[in-house]
């Protein structure tokens, strides 16, 4: 409640929050022990966030790799249920999301509510796709021989995600949900200046049925941690959406580092070197899902 209405009789000491990272289903402090202040659009203190380091990213990749076989191996229907449950939990934390989006992005109450609604709806939209991808993206190929030839989409593996810097909730969900819907696991670098919705999302994930390690969220300086994720040999793909407007980040350098182990790279929107943040309110298509899929093709002999 507003602090200016306090009187001597009802004075209560502020509970000042220092958030932690979300790695492997747990909430560890940064290995580096650092944290940084998160402020709203007018520079007022909101909370302390953990300032993750390259070693936190390393731990997150280990956790994501460990979680991958089970998550990718879960039935698509089950993944859909689990993700839908996340939307339910987010709905329960709606007021908190609205407050954080409003403070972080400087929106009006109504506008912030609309953003949170859109974010939760987007999550549900992607949750619904889990068990429909194979029909839409896979199929039976006609071949000149006595074979069934079947193509099926499969998850790529561990995906590094640079979450959008401005759209701290709708943008975040628009990049994380498509990655995990198909069975990938994610290492997410949250928006540097607006990390609080990501922290709250991690609390929603931890209290739903998403297995630990499927989504790992690191708050901190994007320019510090992103190169280590981009060059990590055990990361199979990277989404560079958050390179737009990130302080000190050149996405071309990240793509170069990613080439070392032939990562799939989803470039940020924009022309040339200038990365821009897309309009996240637009209705999505399947492109963010297909960017992190492999196509497995099986030849099976026809017999009687």
């Amino acid at each position, binding site marked *: 409640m507003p602090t200016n209405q306090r009187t001597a009789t009802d004075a209560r000491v502020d509970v000042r929050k220092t958030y932690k990272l979300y790695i492997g289903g747990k909430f560890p402090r940064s290995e580096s022990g650092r944290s940084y202040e998160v402020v709203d659009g007018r520079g007022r203190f909101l909370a302390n966030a953990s300032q993750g380091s390259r070693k936190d990213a*390393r731990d997150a*990749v280990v956790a994501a*790799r460990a979680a991958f076989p089970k998550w990718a191996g879960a039935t698509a229907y089950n993944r859909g249920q689990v993700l839908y449950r996340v939307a339910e939990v987010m709905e329960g934390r709606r007021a908190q999301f609205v407050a954080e989006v409003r403070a972080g992005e400087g929106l009006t109450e109504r506008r912030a509510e609309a953003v949170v609604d859109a974010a939760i709806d987007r999550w549900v939209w992607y949750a619904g796709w889990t068990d429909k991808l194979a029909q839409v993206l896979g199929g039976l190929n006609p071949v000149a021989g006595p074979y069934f030839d079947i193509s099926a989409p499969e998850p790529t593996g561990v995906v590094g995600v640079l979450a959008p810097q401005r759209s701290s909730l709708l943008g975040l969900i628009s990049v994380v949900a498509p990655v995990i819907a198909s069975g990938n696991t994610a290492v997410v670098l949250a928006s540097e200046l607006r990390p609080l919705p990501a922290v709250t999302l991690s609390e929603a994930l931890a209290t739903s049925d998403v297995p630990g390690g499927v989504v790992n969220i690191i708050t901190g300086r994007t320019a510090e941690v992103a190169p*280590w994720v981009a*060059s*990590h*040999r*055990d*990361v199979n793909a990277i989404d560079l959406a958050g390179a737009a407007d990130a302080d000190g980040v050149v996405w071309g350098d990240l793509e170069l*580092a990613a080439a*070392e*182990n032939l990562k799939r790279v989803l470039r940020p929107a924009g022309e040339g070197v200038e990365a821009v943040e897309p309009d996240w309110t637009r209705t999505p298509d399947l492109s963010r899902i297909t960017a992190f899929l492999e196509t497995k093709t099986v030849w099976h002999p026809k017999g009687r």
Partner: protein
Amino acid sequence: MVSTTSTSAPSVDATARARDLLGVSRLTNAALTSWLHGLPGVDQVGCEGRAAALGTRSIKTTSKAWAIDTAISMIDLTTLEGADTPGKVRGLAAKALHPDPTDPSTPSPAAVCVYGDMVATAREALGQAPVNVAAVATAFPSGRASMPVKLADTRDAIEAGADEIDMVIDRGAFLSGNYLGVFQEIAQVAEACTRADGTRARLKVIMETGELVTYDNVRRASWLSMLAGGDFIKTSTGKVSPAATLPVTLIMLEAVRDWRDLTGEMVGVKPAGGIRTSKDAIKFLVTVSEVAGDDWLDPFWFRFGASSLLNDLLLQRQRMRIGAYSGADYVTDDSPSLY
């Protein structure tokens, strides 16, 4: 780095030496009991505190690079599964010869450790390379067999070309106070480690500390094993949890240090089982240096019984070489084991 030779000093008469050390005319169970129980007790809290403190040292850059290479050269690369095949043993030998094919400067592990029936296969696969073959013997891992069977098991491995023998003690006998029985068992196996040409295979004595219940027992078992002629004292089979913990290894390192003060002889230490990360391995190296001394920081005197540890060390090594984190795609995929 001192090379690891496969022979050790000629077998001393363990019983005669034990009589000397204990100051008795006849080695009886009572004499051994009063000697072993006369050892100072282990301060459990202090020991665990010291081990935890030694685990907090920060080892970076060139020291870390040295530690990783040293740790690799100290590994007894192990496969001890019921499902072992000659192919798997050859694969392990190939890995010992070329741990990281992308970097020929990677040192080789000290030995490969296999069951007795795989010794010949391992020996053949390793050829003349300076990698020893270690064989577990004496009805590993339980040790529940009669003495003639245990001795036959040992001789069989020696004849097949084993350079080192890892024996298990009879924990049941030890825990029920039959120290003389354990002493004689070790002494006889040590005797059986003598080859036809008079050279000896080195004997590692597995105490299975996870079954010894107390730190006092670990200390007693360490002294008993050294007294009976073991060339190495080894924590565990890897089949029992907990296996090689840092406090237990610390107690054993104190024992070999004090043994050298008493007799002038060095005995090796081998923690085995449960050491999977480079970080863990470096903690052990710090403990070796601080407790026993740098003389033990040599593959001849200190070993890690491990399998998955090697991959983690290789990943760390690659990380330091290429400047980016490496991943499981860049090391060989070994099937899981308890080590």
